[in-house]
């Protein structure tokens, strides 16, 4: 797949608009269905704070397409982060809501943007409190290439983007109160 690039001179570039996002979500759902059949052993876990919106969208579509009830949870990994006391202000926690046990389940972890990989590491660490999953897979809407700090890769990727550390991916979803679904790549001044 061709990846997208923003030159340092430009201010911002649209990565995904509403139509493209719908297509991307449909593709991700098809790929998930291919690998998970009837979803009887699968649970979906959205990562706080922003991955939950992507998880909601995926979950809704998957339940519609498969006509099955699929467990959905939200996971906050703030207390498992490795940068505590290494940043000036402690990260603010969000709600964790996993009303099921993940022991022996196939976990599909969902986040909006994969960057350094550190939050995914924290998420896998915090997941252990809810049981030992059979497998863990990762779905991300945007994969920021060349920025990984840990050996972590996504199994399902919406769009791969070549970015610099000085750039930022801005995800605006209707579920977050934005007018339209839009995902931007912007240069931090």
């Amino acid at each position, binding site marked *: 797949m061709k990846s997208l690039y923003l030159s340092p001179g430009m201010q911002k570039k649209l990565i995904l608009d509403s139509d493209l996002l719908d297509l991307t979500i449909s593709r991700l759902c098809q790929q998930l269905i291919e690998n998970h059949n009837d979803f009887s052993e699968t649970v979906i876990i959205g990562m706080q704070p922003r991955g939950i919106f992507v998880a909601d969208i995926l979950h809704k579509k998957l339940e519609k397409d498969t006509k099955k009830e699929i467990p959905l949870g939200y996971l906050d990994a703030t*207390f498992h982060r490795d940068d505590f006391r290494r940043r*000036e*202000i402690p990260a603010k926690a969000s709600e*964790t809501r996993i009303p099921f046990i993940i022991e022996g389940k196939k976990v599909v972890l969902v986040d909006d943007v994969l960057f350094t990989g550190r939050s995914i590491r924290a998420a896998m*660490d915090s997941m252990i409190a809810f049981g030992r999953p059979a497998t863990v897979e990762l779905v991300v809407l945007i994969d920021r290439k060349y920025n990984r700090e840990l050996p972590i890769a996504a199994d399902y990727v919406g769009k791969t983007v070549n970015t610099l550390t000085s750039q930022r991916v801005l995800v605006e979803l209707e579920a977050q109160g934005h007018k339209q679904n839009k995902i931007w790549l912007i240069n931090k001044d």
Partner: protein
Amino acid sequence: MSKLSQKHLLGIKDITREDIELIFETADNFKEVINRPIKKVPSLRDVTIANVFFENSTRTRLSFELAQKRLSADVVNFSASNSSVKKGETLLDTVNNILAMKVDMIVMRHASPGAPHYLAKHINANIVNAGDGTHEHPTQALLDTFSIREKLGDVSGKKIAIIGDILHSRVALSNIFALQKLGAKVMVCGPPTLLPKFIKHLGVEVEFDVRKALLWCDVANVLRIQLERQHIKYFPSLREYSLYYGITKKVLDSLKKPIIIMHPGPINRGVELSSDAADSSHSIILDQVENGVAVRMAVLYLLAGATA
């Protein structure tokens, strides 16, 4: 913003409403953590905390220690009764010696009001006041108000009566500050001898009749008679106190309205609170204890995390 305005938690007087709300929001998340099958998170993995108790405590100390362990902190305990304090060491020397062993935070209880404030001026570590004499007991007030918020949805606009030995109570003072900052109306009630003379200046209502206080309030926070701090007689006998100020199930039922009963513990059953009242459905005393761990985790997490 996810940072407290203070480096220490010395008293509720020094912190803002935003601080209290941040602690509550963080405590909500920790309450979820301590109800998981695995109740431990690794946040404070490289933090060492000393619990320095110059005064007796069961609940507070246990609650702090559990909070610290659930955050994966290293914990050392110190109690004055079997230490060099008995040999004449000063407070500052004692604490500096503990800090020399690379301790990051101090949780301290002391019989002298202002002892943690004095320490805060001289040492670099974060200090959490776990009760200083008759002055403040900030984490107790935080867990009390957190429990009210949990039960009633909000603290703002609610009426809270603090009943009993106000004069010797650090819980009362911290609660008054916390409740007022969160927009609640506060009344104190007790025999005139156990109410501080100028308490009205704090903007609280004063009532001597416990029944009137109970009729007025949504929540009654009942305090223990602190005989260990009473060096003169403030009332004729415990039996008489219990007769006039003791709260029983019968009294609560006769109010014919919903009311929440709180108590910071330890309860003197049959004195300020009868057994049937303490164990009734009105009582949220054990919720307070559970919330205490979550609230203390939040305080320690927020203080330890703010490195700037």
